[in-house]
């Protein structure tokens, strides 16, 4: 009888130990995590005391990229009005051959800070090594002189390949040129099924010593729509057929091709 009562007493108590363990662990995790994460972007700002006049925009070397942000919310790249996604493509493409890879932002005083940071981000995402903020003029940035017709030519643009290893850019580019038509066909064939489909696709090929393709894949794709997979599979199949000269014994390379598709 006594034993039974004792057993009942034991049953009625909740075991607190695991709860305390967990709470203490949470406490320790929070104490360790105390240094709070901060996220930052770096920019270059001209020294306002520096009196050398900035070069007029028209005299800027043609390869310099200047994003102008106007009062009315429009943006231009090198005085050419365009939409954000179009600008991203343009910057990506033009930065490839540029050195140093700098982008400047010339914004109107009344543009919101959020938008300025957004375009700093766009430039960074497109591959800019440094982003500079131009001196602010009371009259705002130089007005745009032309308007990008809002669209790229219908079809595909083959970007400059990015190469790593024992192959040069010219050879890598030459290897893809004969297949341009086939790559474009992959897209155009499916376009009637998804008329809005557009975006950037990256093909990645790794090459072996004999110039053979050891691995091929779509490393990133911004295409959308129902037939996205069909197009990507088709592109990947075409890319598998690229022909390269032998690289030499023990030599390998990695090549990436950016493809930009537009319905026009």
């Amino acid at each position, binding site marked *: 009888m*006594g034993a039974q009562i004792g057993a009942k007493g034991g049953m009625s108590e909740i075991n607190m130990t695991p709860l305390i363990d967990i709470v203490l662990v949470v406490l320790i995790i929070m104490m360790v995590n105390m240094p*709070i*994460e901060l996220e*930052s*972007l770096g920019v270059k*700002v001209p020294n306002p005391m520096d009196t050398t006049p900035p070069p007029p925009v028209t005299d800027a070397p043609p390869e310099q990229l200047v994003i102008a942000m106007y009062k009315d919310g429009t943006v231009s790249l090198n005085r050419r009005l365009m939409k954000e996604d179009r600008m991203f493509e343009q910057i990506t493409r033009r930065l490839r051959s540029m050195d140093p890879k700098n982008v400047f932002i010339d914004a109107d005083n009344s543009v919101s*800070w959020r938008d*300025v940071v*957004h375009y700093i981000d766009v430039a960074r995402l497109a591959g800019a090594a440094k982003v500079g903020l131009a001196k602010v003029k009371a009259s705002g940035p130089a007005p745009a002189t032309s308007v990008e017709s809002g669209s790229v030519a219908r079809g595909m643009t083959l970007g400059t390949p990015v190469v790593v290893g024992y192959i040069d850019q010219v050879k890598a580019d030459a290897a893809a040129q004969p297949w341009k038509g086939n790559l474009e066909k992959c897209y155009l064939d499916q376009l009637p099924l998804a008329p809005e489909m557009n975006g950037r696709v990256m093909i990645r090929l790794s090459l072996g010593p004999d110039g053979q393709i050891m691995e091929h894949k779509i490393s990133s794709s911004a295409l959308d729509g129902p037939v996205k997979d069909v197009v990507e599979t088709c592109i990947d199949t075409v890319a598998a057929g690229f022909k390269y000269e032998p690289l030499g014994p023990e030599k390998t390379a990695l090549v990436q091709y950016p493809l930009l598709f537009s319905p026009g």
Partner: protein
Amino acid sequence: MAGVGQNKGAMADINVTPLIDVVLVLLVVFMVVTPMMQSGQTVDLPVATQAISENDVGQFIVVSVTEDRGWWVDAEQVCGQDKVQCTKDADSPKLIDAINVEFAKDRARVAEGKPARSVLIKADGDLPYEKVRMVMDAIAEKGMTTQLLAADKGGG
């Protein structure tokens, strides 16, 4: 016999209730204090996907540019009390003074072997560019032309 058994059972248990009480209170204190521990003022930061995450271990002199609470250097309000707008001419020197005070502290830190801090600008996303640029220019005038901007990491 039964009485002895019961007694022993009761004796063997440690009373954990006060411990739990204390621990839970600590937990709540930490939860409340954590948001206050952030550097600079609370502002609605712009979002950037390419922002670099850094552990905030006090390596920044944080210049906060807020919408209606003026400019701050770390926890010190430079201007904009009582919702008065900060102006470039009147308040830039104050801002620079406040930053200089922090730099003076830095020299003491460096003497102790700690790294010098860099200036981080934490500006509200809703502000017009002009208001933020005012602060950036004031700081650039001191020769600090490479500046760090705080942003919230977002998207891919």
